[in-house]
């Protein structure tokens, strides 16, 4: 649907500001994850402390955006696509903040790890984390482009994350069974991999919100679309 500007130009400005703030939130969160992965790679506990502190910056950005969102709701009483955009932005902001928390948790694990973390699963977790970071960046792009199709593509990317999660989980279990001394270190990694898996789920939520904001329809409406059914998670 083509979108002209509002008659009240300051309303356009406010919506633009909200969109920019979401993009900024996205960048902060991406950076937080990138740093966490780097500190895991370097086993840099000092850097980990800095990352943990940096979570405050994300929380502040979250609160500021939350405030702008409630103000625009109260002031403009948005309708139709504006309403869907604001409604989605509220949820996206919250989910980004949660992703930031999970990224911070990785740094927290590195900060307290007094033992040597096994190399192979650490490397795999870093790889997985980089993929999650690509998802975050893509979902923010989909929001900026206001593209339901792109949002759908990002949604699908989570399948790979889930597979990697299971793979690393199995790997860690094997490590622990083989060598009970590694249990403490592997438990730390287990938490990290779970953090990453949850981040992927939050990105999926964001993708669903964007899809709704753009199209006005839920990504899954229960109707039987064969192309969708093929990719839906299988019931066990």
């Amino acid at each position, binding site marked *: *649907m*083509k*979108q*002209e*500007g*509002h*008659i*009240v130009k300051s*309303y356009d400005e406010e919506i633009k500001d909200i969109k920019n703030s979401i993009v900024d939130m996205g960048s902060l969160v991406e950076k937080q994850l990138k740093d966490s992965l780097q500190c895991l790679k370097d086993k840099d506990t000092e850097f980990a402390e800095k990352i943990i502190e940096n979570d405050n910056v994300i929380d502040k950005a979250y609160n500021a955006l939350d405030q702008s969102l409630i103000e625009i709701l109260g002031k403009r*009483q*948005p*309708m*139709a*696509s*504006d*309403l*869907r955009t604001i409604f989605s932005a509220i949820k996206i902001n919250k989910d980004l903040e949660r992703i930031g928390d999970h990224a911070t948790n990785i740094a927290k694990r590195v900060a307290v790890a007094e033992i040597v973390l096994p190399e192979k699963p650490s490397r795999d977790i870093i790889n997985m984390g980089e993929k999650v970071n690509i998802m975050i960046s893509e979902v923010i792009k989909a929001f900026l482009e206001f593209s339901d199709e792109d949002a759908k593509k990002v949604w699908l990317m989570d399948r790979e994350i889930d597979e990697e999660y299971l793979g690393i989980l199995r790997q860690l279990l094997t490590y622990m069974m083989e060598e009970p001394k590694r249990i403490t270190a592997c438990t730390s990694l287990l938490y990290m991999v779970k953090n990453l898996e949850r981040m992927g789920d939050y990105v999926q939520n964001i993708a669903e919100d964007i899809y709704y904001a753009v199209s*006005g*329809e839920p990504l899954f409406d229960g109707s039987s679309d064969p192309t969708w059914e093929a990719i839906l998670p299988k019931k066990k």
Partner: protein
Amino acid sequence: MVENNNTKISAKDVDVFYSEKQALNKISMDIKEKEVTALIGPSGCGKSTFLRCINRMNDLIEICKVTGSIKVDNEEIISSSTDVVSLRSKIGMVFQKPNPFPKSIFDNVAYGPSIHGLADTKSDLENIVITSLKKAGLYNEVKDRLNEPGTSLSGGQQQRLCIARAIAVNPEIILMDEPCSALDPIATAIIEELIDELRLNYTIIIVTHSMQQAARVSQKTCFFHLGELIESGETNKIFTNPDNTKTQDYITGRFG
């Protein structure tokens, strides 16, 4: 909410001309009974003109010509043989500016039932007046001063008096043409609450310039533009996800 499927008013291909100028172009819509239908659209879009077709108010404008078909309870009303007086007794109307008669509060409400012969005795008439004032949510505020002039009331009370006057003749349909545009937010909220109650017993069609009001009070919304009906449907759908770009642009304040 229980869905009802009884069509109260059915319009088909309604055209309205003021002299040469076409004000409505092939309007077709069904209005369900005991629902609130909101007509929205920019000034001059034809929404009030359409409202006035339903009780044949346009007859009062000499240069106005209405063609097409409007059926109320399956009876054609756009016809020279239509009994306009009986049609109007079935359809009450409330206007933008409260317009009580220069009479007492009691007489304002009693006037309609008297001339329509709805009350045989004085106590019958009293009953009708009291019941109507109660239905309009005004009785408690005026019960001690029924003999004071209607014009002595506040704007919001006057509007409720007009609603009481409209429902005193026991109509089935109530037409409201921007009933709250001259009222403050509290008086508006009281009228909206009243509309919510009235729709249990009446079919209500309301013209409003306030999107939020349309979204709050109605179950169906019809968007008019330049004399055409652009989109109509469930209010919840229209205000969250309209199908038509023009509707979208209008309700989001983008109309250029």
